[in-house]
């Protein structure tokens, strides 16, 4: 019975307009983001730059964070990203004094005037350095030239300040600013960026071809781009499918069938999951083929199943949760409420994940980000959290699907009926 229903549901999905719109959206996402994917080449010695990396050096982290805090304290305006959106925070006098105290303890510099002096000296020195580099006399304007980037203020920590105390002080500053500031744990590490050396670039390259076997890194990048849409579009399919019987006035006809509710919902759910996975697998063939060709010419031992593993492990839990929210809320309310709920969740997850693009900081985000084929080390470090994240969402999706079975069963027995219109009318 399940097999027959499953195939029937797959056929129905394949005939629905919304499914093909979703396929088009996924193709668009893939073509625009990964259409011109270049496979990483071995770094050459003497390159102008090898990119930037986050520094683990505690001194660099402290100096960068303290420099940033000092600048914002002097400007009396602090930048925060509570959900990834820019939020400018202006403090009242009491809070401003607290930040002043934190800076005082962390840097050993007392008073706003001394900090202003330090700030002026830093930028004057920077300006002179840049003008010397461009071969101009100090004070001469650089006509027709793009101004070179100035280095942000860096302030040395006070003598004897331990890293633990520094962390406590920065956490306090972040709390005063309402969270999501440049002094929160994730951000202060992310902001401490230093240029990569040739050796760093070589290490990352070797990790990509040896530990990730080339395809692993690209499968992560593929997953990073695909989850952005997969965190939302399945809900449209789920809501449409759940409302279809009602729209076609077929509910009563299906309710009286002998087929168990669990079989009906499971066949619908799994058919939608499979039908969404099909285009994802199909699209993954493009980068996989590219990687395999490159591996063959370069003599790299690539993993041909890496994309399949990442699709099932990384992307599938996100698809499952979007589908589950869709079927659960639609059965519960008989409305398109799920679109709004999933849309809001997607919105917060997407903009909340902007600080974690480099990978390794997966947290509990619905759409874990890793916007590079490199950073295998970060992936390894964050793997336990990533695995917990994916298991949590898979479990939640299964629970919601099970609850949908219960609601559907109650509706069939005539014990549950709720729609917003009925609520409105019952008040009369």
């Amino acid at each position, binding site marked *: 019975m399940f097999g027959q229903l499953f195939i029937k549901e797959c056929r129905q999905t394949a005939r629905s307009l919304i499914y093909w719109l979703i396929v088009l959206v996924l193709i668009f996402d893939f073509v625009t983001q990964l259409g011109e994917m270049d496979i990483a080449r071995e770094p050459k010695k003497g390159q102008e730059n090898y990119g930037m990396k986050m520094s683990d050096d505690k001194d660099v982290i402290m100096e960068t964070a303290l420099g940033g805090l000092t600048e914002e304290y002097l400007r009396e305006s602090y930048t925060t990203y*509570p959900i990834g959106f820019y939020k400018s925070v202006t403090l009242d006098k009491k809070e401003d004094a607290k930040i002043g105290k934190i800076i005082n303890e962390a840097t050993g510099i007392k008073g706003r005037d001394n900090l202003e002096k330090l700030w002026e000296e830093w930028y004057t020195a920077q300006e002179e350095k840049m003008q010397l580099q461009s071969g101009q006399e100090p004070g001469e304007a650089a006509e027709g030239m793009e101004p070179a980037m100035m280095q942000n203020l860096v302030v040395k920590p006070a003598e004897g300040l331990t890293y633990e105390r520094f962390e406590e002080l920065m956490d306090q500053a972040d709390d005063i600013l309402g969270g999501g500031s440049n002094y929160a744990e994730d951000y202060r590490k992310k902001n401490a960026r230093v240029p990569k050396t040739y050796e760093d670039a070589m290490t990352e390259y070797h990790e990509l071809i040896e530990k990730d076997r080339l395809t692993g890194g690209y499968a992560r990048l593929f997953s990073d781009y695909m989850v952005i849409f997969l965190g939302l*579009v399945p809900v449209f399919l789920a809501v449409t499918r759940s409302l279809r019987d009602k*729209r076609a006035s077929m509910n009563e006809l299906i309710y009286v069938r002998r087929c168990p509710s669990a079989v009906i919902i499971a066949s619908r759910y799994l058919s939608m999951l499979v039908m969404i996975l099909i285009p994802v697998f199909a699209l993954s063939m493009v980068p996989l083929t590219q990687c395999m060709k490159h591996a063959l010419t370069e003599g790299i031992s690539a993993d041909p199943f890496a994309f399949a593993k990442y699709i099932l492990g990384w992307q599938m839990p996100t698809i499952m949760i979007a589908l589950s929210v869709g079927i659960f809320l639609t059965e519960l309310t008989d409305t398109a409420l799920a679109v709004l709920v999933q849309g809001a969740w997607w919105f917060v997850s*997407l903009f909340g994940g902007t600080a974690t693009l480099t990978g390794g900081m997966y947290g509990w985000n619905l759409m874990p980000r890793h916007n590079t084929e490199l950073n295998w080390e970060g992936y390894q470090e964050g793997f336990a959290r990533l695995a917990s994240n994916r298991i949590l969402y898979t479990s939640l999706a299964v629970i919601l699907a099970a609850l949908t079975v219960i609601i559907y069963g109650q509706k069939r027995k005539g014990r549950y009926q709720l729609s917003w219109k009925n609520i409105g009318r019952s008040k009369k």
Partner: protein
Amino acid sequence: MEKYWQIEKVNLKYHVPLHVLVCILILGISPLLLGVSNLPAEDTAKVLERYVALTGIILITPIFLPEQDKNIRELVNSKYTKSSAVYLVRLAGNLCLLAALLGIYIGMLKHNNCQFPVIKYYLGTFAEMLFLGGLGIIFYRLSDNLIIGYMAPIIYYIIAAGGGEKYMGVLYPFSMSTGSYTEKIWLFAAAACLIGDGVFLKIPRPRLKTGCP
């Protein structure tokens, strides 16, 4: 006139409250998620274009929702009052609500010491709301499916947010935050076309066979 007011009264009583409530909720929670005070012009534009404009999808798209049930639609079509007139009345009512909500929100931003040209940003955001809602209306009309109606503007928004400036040209919805206003005029013109087509377009729907000769 009385007739049209009756249509709007039914709309306000049964169809709009939930959508308005959702919009108020979205706008109400914004200070928890975004900066809404002491913002410079570009950041104010970001809040309006990327967040507040989303309410256009919620309030404009579902103007055909009461006729989602085919039986009701056929009943409405059989009446003397044209269905397009009914849609226009609902649309006008929803637009007034949207304009009022946007006005209150902009007033709140101004009160919170955000620096921006009020009228310009009000009209620019409203044009974007109309465009997103217009996209929803036309897709809803063509597909006869509310979910597709919601999906189209949301996908448009995602593509725009994901660096869609190069694909969207003059219809790029977040231009105010990059300092350009021409796009808003194009968005308004496109919105007028989309909404006009959506409301007046007659799409033949297959009828159920009754077995009668």
